[in-house]
Protein backbone atom coordinates (compact mmCIF):
# COMPACT_ATOMS: atom_id res chain seq x y z
CA UNK A 1 0.00 0.00 0.00
CA UNK A 2 1.46 3.36 -0.98
CA UNK A 3 2.14 6.17 1.45
CA UNK A 4 -0.82 8.66 1.57
CA UNK A 5 1.62 11.58 1.61
CA UNK A 6 3.16 10.32 -1.61
CA UNK A 7 -0.32 9.85 -3.11
CA UNK A 8 -1.26 13.46 -2.23
CA UNK A 9 1.99 14.76 -3.64
CA UNK A 10 1.71 12.75 -6.84
CA UNK A 11 -1.88 13.99 -7.28
CA UNK A 12 -0.76 17.59 -7.02
CA UNK A 13 2.15 17.00 -9.38
CA UNK A 14 -0.22 15.30 -11.82
CA UNK A 15 -2.56 18.31 -11.75
CA UNK A 16 0.28 20.75 -12.31
CA UNK A 17 1.65 18.62 -15.14
CA UNK A 18 -1.78 18.45 -16.73
CA UNK A 19 -2.20 22.22 -16.62
CA UNK A 20 1.33 22.68 -17.90
CA UNK A 21 0.59 20.30 -20.72
CA UNK A 22 -2.41 22.41 -21.71
CA UNK A 23 -4.93 19.82 -20.43
CA UNK A 24 -7.48 20.41 -17.70
CA UNK A 25 -7.13 18.18 -14.64
CA UNK A 26 -9.94 15.70 -14.16
CA UNK A 27 -11.19 17.49 -11.01
CA UNK A 28 -11.78 20.66 -13.07
CA UNK A 29 -13.63 18.68 -15.74
CA UNK A 30 -15.87 17.01 -13.13
CA UNK A 31 -16.62 20.38 -11.54
CA UNK A 32 -17.47 21.96 -14.91
CA UNK A 33 -19.65 19.01 -15.89
CA UNK A 34 -21.51 19.29 -12.55
CA UNK A 35 -22.18 22.98 -13.22
CA UNK A 36 -23.52 22.22 -16.71
CA UNK A 37 -25.86 19.55 -15.31
CA UNK A 38 -27.07 21.75 -12.42
CA UNK A 39 -27.77 24.65 -14.79
CA UNK A 40 -29.69 22.29 -17.07
CA UNK A 41 -31.79 21.10 -14.10
CA UNK A 42 -32.38 24.72 -13.04
CA UNK A 43 -33.51 25.61 -16.57
CA UNK A 44 -36.12 22.83 -16.35
CA UNK A 45 -37.42 24.09 -12.98
CA UNK A 46 -37.35 27.87 -13.49
CA UNK A 47 -38.77 30.10 -16.23
CA UNK A 48 -36.44 31.07 -19.16
CA UNK A 49 -36.03 34.67 -17.92
CA UNK A 50 -34.40 33.29 -14.76
CA UNK A 51 -32.46 30.26 -16.02
CA UNK A 52 -32.47 29.89 -19.81
CA UNK A 53 -31.68 26.48 -21.28
CA UNK A 54 -28.30 25.68 -22.83
CA UNK A 55 -30.00 25.68 -26.23
CA UNK A 56 -31.27 29.22 -25.67
CA UNK A 57 -27.85 30.33 -24.45
CA UNK A 58 -26.24 28.80 -27.55
CA UNK A 59 -28.67 30.74 -29.74
CA UNK A 60 -27.67 33.92 -27.89
CA UNK A 61 -23.98 33.09 -28.33
CA UNK A 62 -24.42 32.67 -32.07
CA UNK A 63 -26.34 35.92 -32.33
CA UNK A 64 -23.96 38.05 -30.24
CA UNK A 65 -22.31 41.15 -31.68
CA UNK A 66 -18.92 39.42 -31.98
CA UNK A 67 -17.41 42.61 -33.34
CA UNK A 68 -17.68 43.93 -29.74
CA UNK A 69 -15.12 41.35 -28.55
CA UNK A 70 -12.04 42.77 -30.34
CA UNK A 71 -13.15 46.28 -29.33
CA UNK A 72 -13.18 45.36 -25.63
CA UNK A 73 -10.00 43.28 -25.85
CA UNK A 74 -8.29 46.09 -27.76
CA UNK A 75 -9.29 48.65 -25.12
CA UNK A 76 -8.00 46.40 -22.34
CA UNK A 77 -4.69 45.65 -24.02
CA UNK A 78 -4.03 49.25 -25.03
CA UNK A 79 -4.85 50.52 -21.55
CA UNK A 80 -2.71 47.82 -19.94
CA UNK A 81 0.25 48.65 -22.16
CA UNK A 82 -0.07 52.34 -21.24
CA UNK A 83 -0.55 51.46 -17.55
CA UNK A 84 2.45 49.15 -17.61
CA UNK A 85 4.64 51.79 -19.25
CA UNK A 86 3.59 54.41 -16.72
CA UNK A 87 3.96 51.91 -13.87
CA UNK A 88 7.51 50.93 -14.91
CA UNK A 89 8.60 54.54 -15.39
CA UNK A 90 7.14 55.67 -12.07
CA UNK A 91 8.53 52.64 -10.20
CA UNK A 92 11.99 53.19 -11.73
CA UNK A 93 11.90 56.86 -10.74
CA UNK A 94 10.83 56.00 -7.20
CA UNK A 95 13.47 53.30 -6.97
CA UNK A 96 16.17 55.67 -8.19
CA UNK A 97 15.17 58.78 -6.25
CA UNK A 98 13.81 58.06 -2.78
CA UNK A 99 12.38 61.58 -2.53
CA UNK A 100 10.06 60.81 -5.47
CA UNK A 101 8.76 57.80 -3.58
CA UNK A 102 8.33 59.73 -0.33
CA UNK A 103 6.31 62.47 -2.02
CA UNK A 104 4.36 60.51 -4.63
CA UNK A 105 3.64 57.05 -3.21
CA UNK A 106 1.19 58.25 -0.52
CA UNK A 107 -0.89 59.95 -3.22
CA UNK A 108 -0.77 56.86 -5.40
CA UNK A 109 -1.98 54.73 -2.48
CA UNK A 110 -4.76 57.26 -1.87
CA UNK A 111 -5.85 56.98 -5.51
CA UNK A 112 -5.87 53.18 -5.16
CA UNK A 113 -8.44 53.49 -2.38
CA UNK A 114 -10.93 55.27 -4.69
CA UNK A 115 -13.70 52.84 -5.74
CA UNK A 116 -13.91 52.01 -9.46
CA UNK A 117 -17.49 53.29 -9.55
CA UNK A 118 -16.28 56.76 -8.48
CA UNK A 119 -13.66 56.77 -11.24
CA UNK A 120 -16.39 55.88 -13.75
CA UNK A 121 -18.47 58.84 -12.57
CA UNK A 122 -15.50 61.19 -12.70
CA UNK A 123 -14.67 59.97 -16.20
CA UNK A 124 -18.22 60.60 -17.40
CA UNK A 125 -18.12 64.11 -15.92
CA UNK A 126 -14.60 64.99 -17.09
CA UNK A 127 -14.36 63.52 -20.59
CA UNK A 128 -16.60 64.00 -23.59
CA UNK A 129 -14.88 61.43 -25.80
CA UNK A 130 -16.07 57.97 -24.85
CA UNK A 131 -12.79 56.20 -25.63
CA UNK A 132 -10.99 58.67 -23.38
CA UNK A 133 -13.37 57.84 -20.55
CA UNK A 134 -12.71 54.11 -20.80
CA UNK A 135 -8.95 54.52 -21.22
CA UNK A 136 -8.83 56.88 -18.24
CA UNK A 137 -10.74 54.50 -15.98
CA UNK A 138 -8.58 51.52 -16.92
CA UNK A 139 -5.29 53.38 -16.62
CA UNK A 140 -6.16 55.06 -13.32
CA UNK A 141 -7.11 51.67 -11.86
CA UNK A 142 -4.31 49.51 -13.32
CA UNK A 143 -1.24 51.79 -13.44
CA UNK A 144 -0.98 52.17 -9.64
CA UNK A 145 -1.16 48.39 -9.23
CA UNK A 146 1.69 47.93 -11.73
CA UNK A 147 3.61 50.68 -9.95
CA UNK A 148 3.26 49.25 -6.45
CA UNK A 149 3.94 45.65 -7.56
CA UNK A 150 7.02 46.59 -9.58
CA UNK A 151 8.43 48.95 -6.96
CA UNK A 152 8.09 46.19 -4.35
CA UNK A 153 9.83 43.77 -6.68
CA UNK A 154 12.64 46.25 -7.39
CA UNK A 155 13.16 46.81 -3.69
CA UNK A 156 13.22 43.04 -3.25
CA UNK A 157 16.26 42.51 -5.49
CA UNK A 158 18.89 41.24 -3.08
CA UNK A 159 21.66 43.56 -1.92
CA UNK A 160 24.18 40.83 -2.72
CA UNK A 161 23.22 40.81 -6.39
CA UNK A 162 23.00 44.62 -6.53
CA UNK A 163 26.49 44.93 -5.04
CA UNK A 164 27.88 42.29 -7.39
CA UNK A 165 26.53 44.06 -10.47
CA UNK A 166 27.59 47.46 -9.10
CA UNK A 167 31.12 46.09 -8.65
CA UNK A 168 31.21 45.66 -12.44
CA UNK A 169 30.43 49.39 -12.73
CA UNK A 170 27.45 49.44 -15.08
CA UNK A 171 25.80 52.62 -16.30
CA UNK A 172 22.37 53.23 -14.71
CA UNK A 173 20.77 51.97 -17.93
CA UNK A 174 22.86 48.78 -17.90
CA UNK A 175 22.10 48.25 -14.21
CA UNK A 176 18.40 48.43 -14.95
CA UNK A 177 18.53 46.28 -18.09
CA UNK A 178 20.90 43.59 -16.83
CA UNK A 179 19.80 43.24 -13.22
CA UNK A 180 16.59 44.97 -12.21
CA UNK A 181 14.43 44.16 -15.22
CA UNK A 182 15.23 40.42 -15.41
CA UNK A 183 15.09 40.14 -11.62
CA UNK A 184 11.57 41.55 -11.47
CA UNK A 185 10.30 39.67 -14.53
CA UNK A 186 8.40 37.10 -12.43
CA UNK A 187 6.68 39.99 -10.60
CA UNK A 188 5.92 41.72 -13.92
CA UNK A 189 4.16 38.62 -15.23
CA UNK A 190 2.23 38.13 -11.99
CA UNK A 191 1.18 41.76 -12.09
CA UNK A 192 0.01 41.34 -15.69
CA UNK A 193 -2.12 38.36 -14.66
CA UNK A 194 -3.70 40.34 -11.83
CA UNK A 195 -4.30 43.40 -13.98
CA UNK A 196 -5.71 41.39 -16.90
CA UNK A 197 -8.26 39.87 -14.59
CA UNK A 198 -9.06 43.23 -13.00
CA UNK A 199 -9.20 45.20 -16.25
CA UNK A 200 -11.64 42.77 -17.91
CA UNK A 201 -14.02 43.42 -15.04
CA UNK A 202 -13.41 47.16 -14.96
CA UNK A 203 -13.75 47.65 -18.72
CA UNK A 204 -17.11 45.91 -18.62
CA UNK A 205 -18.34 48.35 -15.99
CA UNK A 206 -16.89 51.31 -17.86
CA UNK A 207 -18.52 50.23 -21.13
CA UNK A 208 -21.77 49.62 -19.32
CA UNK A 209 -22.21 53.33 -18.62
CA UNK A 210 -19.83 55.14 -20.90
CA UNK A 211 -19.74 53.44 -24.31
CA UNK A 212 -21.78 52.54 -27.37
CA UNK A 213 -19.71 49.50 -28.27
CA UNK A 214 -17.93 46.67 -26.50
CA UNK A 215 -19.01 43.76 -24.34
CA UNK A 216 -20.10 46.02 -21.49
CA UNK A 217 -22.40 47.84 -23.88
CA UNK A 218 -23.66 44.46 -25.13
CA UNK A 219 -24.47 43.55 -21.53
CA UNK A 220 -26.24 46.85 -21.10
CA UNK A 221 -28.46 46.12 -24.13
CA UNK A 222 -29.13 42.57 -22.89
CA UNK A 223 -30.17 44.01 -19.55
CA UNK A 224 -32.49 46.52 -21.22
CA UNK A 225 -34.10 43.64 -23.13
CA UNK A 226 -34.37 41.46 -19.97
CA UNK A 227 -32.46 38.74 -21.86
CA UNK A 228 -30.79 36.51 -19.25
CA UNK A 229 -29.58 34.25 -22.07
CA UNK A 230 -27.70 37.15 -23.67
CA UNK A 231 -26.27 38.21 -20.29
CA UNK A 232 -25.17 34.61 -19.71
CA UNK A 233 -23.67 34.39 -23.20
CA UNK A 234 -21.68 37.61 -22.74
CA UNK A 235 -20.54 36.39 -19.32
CA UNK A 236 -19.29 33.17 -20.90
CA UNK A 237 -17.40 35.20 -23.49
CA UNK A 238 -15.80 37.34 -20.77
CA UNK A 239 -14.77 34.29 -18.78
CA UNK A 240 -13.28 32.69 -21.89
CA UNK A 241 -11.36 35.87 -22.74
CA UNK A 242 -9.99 36.02 -19.22
CA UNK A 243 -8.98 32.36 -19.28
CA UNK A 244 -7.35 32.75 -22.70
CA UNK A 245 -5.30 35.75 -21.56
CA UNK A 246 -4.26 33.94 -18.38
CA UNK A 247 -3.17 30.92 -20.41
CA UNK A 248 -1.21 33.21 -22.75
CA UNK A 249 0.62 34.87 -19.85
CA UNK A 250 1.27 31.49 -18.21
CA UNK A 251 2.79 30.22 -21.46
CA UNK A 252 4.99 33.30 -21.71
CA UNK A 253 5.95 32.73 -18.08
CA UNK A 254 6.96 29.13 -18.76
CA UNK A 255 9.00 30.25 -21.74
CA UNK A 256 10.88 33.15 -20.18
CA UNK A 257 11.23 31.81 -16.65
CA UNK A 258 12.61 28.44 -17.70
CA UNK A 259 15.47 28.85 -15.20
CA UNK A 260 13.00 28.49 -12.31
CA UNK A 261 12.02 24.90 -13.17
Amino acid at each position, binding site marked *: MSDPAIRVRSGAVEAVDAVRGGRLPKEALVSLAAFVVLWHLASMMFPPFMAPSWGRIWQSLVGLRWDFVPITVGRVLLALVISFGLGVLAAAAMYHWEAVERYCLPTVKLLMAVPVLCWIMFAVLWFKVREMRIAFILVVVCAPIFLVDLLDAMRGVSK*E*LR*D*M*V*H*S*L*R*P*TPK*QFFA*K*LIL*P*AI*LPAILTSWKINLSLSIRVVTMAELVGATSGIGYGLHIANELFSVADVFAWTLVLVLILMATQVAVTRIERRV*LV*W*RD
Partner: protein
Amino acid sequence: MNDGILVEGLRKVYRQKGTGVAVVAIEQLDFRVRRGEIVAIVGKTGCGKSTFLNILIGLEAPTEGRLEIGGKTPYGEFAHFRGKISAVFQQDRLLPWRTVLQNVTLGLEILGMAPDRQQATAERWLSRLGLERFLGAFPGELSGGMRQRAALARAFALNPELLIADEAFGHLDEVTAVAIRQEFLQLVRAEEKTAILVTHQIEEAIAVAGRVLIFGRPASLLAEVRPDDFSPQGRQRLREWIQQALNENRIVEPPPAA
Protein backbone atom coordinates in the same frame (compact mmCIF):
# COMPACT_ATOMS: atom_id res chain seq x y z
CA MET B 1 47.16 50.63 -10.75
CA ASN B 2 50.81 51.42 -11.53
CA ASP B 3 51.31 52.86 -8.07
CA GLY B 4 49.38 50.11 -6.24
CA ILE B 5 46.89 50.81 -3.49
CA LEU B 6 47.27 53.57 -0.93
CA VAL B 7 45.14 53.57 2.22
CA GLU B 8 45.62 56.61 4.41
CA GLY B 9 43.71 57.65 7.53
CA LEU B 10 40.72 55.62 6.41
CA ARG B 11 37.73 55.78 8.74
CA LYS B 12 34.11 54.75 8.30
CA VAL B 13 31.23 55.50 10.62
CA TYR B 14 27.67 54.30 9.98
CA ARG B 15 24.45 55.49 11.40
CA GLN B 16 22.15 52.62 12.32
CA LYS B 17 18.97 52.89 10.28
CA GLY B 18 16.54 52.29 13.12
CA THR B 19 18.17 54.09 16.03
CA GLY B 20 20.47 56.58 14.29
CA VAL B 21 23.27 55.46 16.63
CA ALA B 22 26.77 55.95 15.17
CA VAL B 23 28.72 52.71 14.66
CA VAL B 24 32.44 52.79 13.90
CA ALA B 25 33.16 50.15 11.26
CA ILE B 26 36.70 51.30 10.43
CA GLU B 27 38.66 53.04 13.20
CA GLN B 28 41.82 53.92 11.31
CA LEU B 29 43.63 52.20 8.45
CA ASP B 30 46.97 53.09 6.90
CA PHE B 31 48.85 50.76 4.57
CA ARG B 32 49.98 50.25 0.99
CA VAL B 33 49.74 47.34 -1.42
CA ARG B 34 52.27 47.06 -4.23
CA ARG B 35 51.30 46.11 -7.75
CA GLY B 36 51.38 42.32 -8.22
CA GLU B 37 51.27 41.64 -4.49
CA ILE B 38 48.97 39.03 -2.91
CA VAL B 39 47.75 40.36 0.41
CA ALA B 40 45.45 38.64 2.88
CA ILE B 41 43.40 40.51 5.44
CA VAL B 42 42.42 38.53 8.54
CA GLY B 43 40.06 39.70 11.19
CA LYS B 44 37.18 38.45 13.29
CA THR B 45 33.66 38.45 11.96
CA GLY B 46 32.20 41.96 12.12
CA CYS B 47 35.58 43.70 12.29
CA GLY B 48 34.88 45.89 9.26
CA LYS B 49 36.65 43.79 6.62
CA SER B 50 33.66 43.84 4.32
CA THR B 51 33.21 47.58 4.82
CA PHE B 52 36.82 48.05 3.79
CA LEU B 53 36.22 45.89 0.72
CA ASN B 54 33.10 47.86 -0.17
CA ILE B 55 35.23 51.02 -0.18
CA LEU B 56 37.95 49.27 -2.17
CA ILE B 57 35.44 48.00 -4.73
CA GLY B 58 33.89 51.45 -4.89
CA LEU B 59 30.47 50.60 -3.47
CA GLU B 60 30.73 53.18 -0.70
CA ALA B 61 32.89 56.13 0.32
CA PRO B 62 34.85 56.48 3.58
CA THR B 63 33.82 58.98 6.24
CA GLU B 64 37.40 60.25 6.51
CA GLY B 65 40.74 59.55 4.88
CA ARG B 66 41.37 58.23 1.42
CA LEU B 67 41.84 55.05 -0.52
CA GLU B 68 43.52 55.41 -3.89
CA ILE B 69 44.28 52.90 -6.59
CA GLY B 70 46.84 54.27 -9.00
CA GLY B 71 46.11 57.75 -7.68
CA LYS B 72 42.34 57.57 -8.20
CA THR B 73 39.57 56.81 -5.73
CA PRO B 74 37.40 53.82 -6.71
CA TYR B 75 34.30 55.31 -5.06
CA GLY B 76 34.85 58.76 -6.59
CA GLU B 77 35.80 57.83 -10.14
CA PHE B 78 33.32 55.04 -10.72
CA ALA B 79 33.61 54.66 -14.48
CA HIS B 80 37.42 54.85 -14.52
CA PHE B 81 37.68 51.47 -12.80
CA ARG B 82 35.26 49.67 -15.12
CA GLY B 83 36.94 46.36 -15.99
CA LYS B 84 39.91 47.07 -13.71
CA ILE B 85 38.59 45.60 -10.46
CA SER B 86 36.89 42.22 -10.05
CA ALA B 87 35.49 40.68 -6.93
CA VAL B 88 34.68 37.11 -5.92
CA PHE B 89 32.26 37.09 -3.03
CA GLN B 90 31.49 34.65 -0.25
CA GLN B 91 28.40 33.49 -2.08
CA ASP B 92 28.86 33.06 -5.83
CA ARG B 93 26.24 35.75 -6.61
CA LEU B 94 25.52 34.30 -10.04
CA LEU B 95 22.38 35.69 -11.66
CA PRO B 96 19.93 32.76 -11.57
CA TRP B 97 18.21 33.68 -14.86
CA ARG B 98 21.47 33.68 -16.82
CA THR B 99 23.26 30.57 -18.00
CA VAL B 100 26.79 29.96 -16.77
CA LEU B 101 28.16 31.38 -20.02
CA GLN B 102 25.92 34.46 -19.79
CA ASN B 103 26.98 35.02 -16.19
CA VAL B 104 30.60 35.09 -17.26
CA THR B 105 29.89 37.47 -20.15
CA LEU B 106 28.04 39.90 -17.84
CA GLY B 107 31.07 42.05 -17.03
CA LEU B 108 32.20 41.93 -20.66
CA GLU B 109 28.78 43.16 -21.81
CA ILE B 110 29.07 46.06 -19.39
CA LEU B 111 32.50 46.80 -20.83
CA GLY B 112 30.94 46.95 -24.28
CA MET B 113 33.00 44.11 -25.76
CA ALA B 114 31.82 42.69 -29.11
CA PRO B 115 29.49 39.67 -28.60
CA ASP B 116 31.74 37.16 -30.40
CA ARG B 117 34.73 38.22 -28.28
CA GLN B 118 32.60 38.06 -25.15
CA GLN B 119 31.64 34.49 -25.93
CA ALA B 120 35.17 33.41 -26.84
CA THR B 121 36.62 34.96 -23.67
CA ALA B 122 33.95 33.45 -21.42
CA GLU B 123 34.32 30.01 -23.03
CA ARG B 124 38.10 30.14 -22.59
CA TRP B 125 37.85 30.90 -18.89
CA LEU B 126 35.09 28.40 -18.24
CA SER B 127 37.10 25.75 -20.03
CA ARG B 128 40.18 26.68 -17.98
CA LEU B 129 38.14 26.16 -14.83
CA GLY B 130 36.70 22.84 -16.00
CA LEU B 131 33.17 24.05 -16.78
CA GLU B 132 33.21 23.67 -20.56
CA ARG B 133 30.38 21.11 -20.42
CA PHE B 134 28.11 23.45 -18.44
CA LEU B 135 28.04 26.58 -20.58
CA GLY B 136 24.28 26.40 -21.09
CA ALA B 137 23.42 25.29 -17.55
CA PHE B 138 21.66 27.60 -15.12
CA PRO B 139 23.34 28.24 -11.74
CA GLY B 140 20.60 26.31 -9.97
CA GLU B 141 21.73 23.18 -11.79
CA LEU B 142 25.31 23.34 -10.49
CA SER B 143 26.99 22.30 -7.24
CA GLY B 144 28.40 24.93 -4.85
CA GLY B 145 31.95 24.32 -6.05
CA MET B 146 31.00 24.59 -9.71
CA ARG B 147 29.10 27.80 -9.04
CA GLN B 148 32.10 29.30 -7.29
CA ARG B 149 34.28 28.29 -10.26
CA ALA B 150 31.84 30.10 -12.54
CA ALA B 151 32.13 33.16 -10.28
CA LEU B 152 35.93 32.93 -10.58
CA ALA B 153 35.61 32.74 -14.36
CA ARG B 154 33.40 35.85 -14.28
CA ALA B 155 36.05 37.70 -12.27
CA PHE B 156 39.03 36.61 -14.38
CA ALA B 157 37.28 37.06 -17.73
CA LEU B 158 37.40 40.82 -17.20
CA ASN B 159 41.21 40.64 -17.09
CA PRO B 160 41.20 43.08 -14.15
CA GLU B 161 44.25 44.65 -12.58
CA LEU B 162 42.97 44.04 -9.05
CA LEU B 163 41.24 40.88 -7.85
CA ILE B 164 39.38 40.85 -4.58
CA ALA B 165 38.21 37.67 -2.83
CA ASP B 166 35.84 38.24 0.07
CA GLU B 167 35.69 35.00 2.09
CA ALA B 168 35.35 33.41 -1.32
CA PHE B 169 36.28 29.87 -0.31
CA GLY B 170 35.05 29.81 3.27
CA HIS B 171 31.61 28.30 2.72
CA LEU B 172 32.81 25.42 0.55
CA ASP B 173 33.77 22.01 1.89
CA GLU B 174 37.47 21.65 2.72
CA VAL B 175 38.47 19.65 -0.37
CA THR B 176 36.63 21.95 -2.79
CA ALA B 177 37.84 25.07 -0.97
CA VAL B 178 41.50 24.00 -1.21
CA ALA B 179 41.13 23.11 -4.90
CA ILE B 180 39.42 26.37 -5.86
CA ARG B 181 41.81 28.43 -3.73
CA GLN B 182 44.73 26.81 -5.56
CA GLU B 183 43.10 27.58 -8.90
CA PHE B 184 42.57 31.16 -7.82
CA LEU B 185 46.20 31.57 -6.76
CA GLN B 186 47.58 29.90 -9.87
CA LEU B 187 45.54 32.24 -12.03
CA VAL B 188 46.52 35.31 -10.01
CA ARG B 189 50.21 34.42 -10.25
CA ALA B 190 50.06 33.38 -13.90
CA GLU B 191 48.29 36.59 -14.87
CA GLU B 192 50.46 38.71 -12.51
CA LYS B 193 47.48 40.32 -10.83
CA THR B 194 47.28 42.23 -7.59
CA ALA B 195 45.03 40.29 -5.23
CA ILE B 196 43.45 41.06 -1.90
CA LEU B 197 41.88 38.18 -0.01
CA VAL B 198 39.72 38.76 2.99
CA THR B 199 39.30 35.83 5.32
CA HIS B 200 38.71 34.93 8.94
CA GLN B 201 40.72 31.72 8.49
CA ILE B 202 44.30 32.35 9.64
CA GLU B 203 45.52 29.11 8.04
CA GLU B 204 44.23 30.21 4.67
CA ALA B 205 45.78 33.67 4.97
CA ILE B 206 49.20 32.26 5.85
CA ALA B 207 49.01 29.68 3.08
CA VAL B 208 48.17 32.02 0.22
CA ALA B 209 49.47 35.52 0.87
CA GLY B 210 52.82 37.19 0.54
CA ARG B 211 51.71 39.55 3.30
CA VAL B 212 49.04 39.20 5.98
CA LEU B 213 47.35 42.26 7.45
CA ILE B 214 45.77 41.64 10.85
CA PHE B 215 42.70 43.76 11.50
CA GLY B 216 41.41 44.60 14.97
CA ARG B 217 37.77 45.36 15.75
CA PRO B 218 36.66 47.97 14.71
CA ALA B 219 38.99 47.80 11.74
CA SER B 220 42.47 49.06 12.42
CA LEU B 221 45.78 47.54 11.45
CA LEU B 222 47.09 45.59 14.46
CA ALA B 223 50.10 44.19 12.62
CA GLU B 224 51.34 42.86 9.31
CA VAL B 225 53.52 39.81 8.72
CA ARG B 226 55.16 38.05 5.76
CA PRO B 227 54.50 34.28 6.01
CA ASP B 228 57.21 33.53 3.46
CA ASP B 229 59.79 34.63 6.03
CA PHE B 230 58.72 31.78 8.33
CA SER B 231 59.77 28.13 8.38
CA PRO B 232 56.99 25.48 8.64
CA GLN B 233 57.49 25.36 12.45
CA GLY B 234 57.65 29.16 12.57
CA ARG B 235 54.37 29.35 10.66
CA GLN B 236 52.67 27.28 13.34
CA ARG B 237 53.85 29.77 15.98
CA LEU B 238 52.81 32.61 13.70
CA ARG B 239 49.32 31.14 13.42
CA GLU B 240 49.01 30.98 17.21
CA TRP B 241 50.36 34.53 17.54
CA ILE B 242 47.79 35.89 15.05
CA GLN B 243 45.03 33.99 16.84
CA GLN B 244 46.07 35.56 20.14
CA ALA B 245 46.17 39.04 18.59
CA LEU B 246 42.66 38.57 17.20
CA ASN B 247 41.33 37.20 20.49
CA GLU B 248 42.87 40.03 22.54
CA ASN B 249 42.18 42.63 19.83
CA ARG B 250 45.73 43.96 20.38
CA ILE B 251 49.34 42.87 20.05
CA VAL B 252 50.38 41.46 23.42
CA GLU B 253 53.89 40.31 22.51
CA PRO B 254 56.27 40.71 19.57
CA PRO B 255 55.80 38.36 16.59
CA PRO B 256 57.51 34.96 16.89
CA ALA B 257 60.96 34.44 15.41
CA ALA B 258 60.97 33.31 11.79
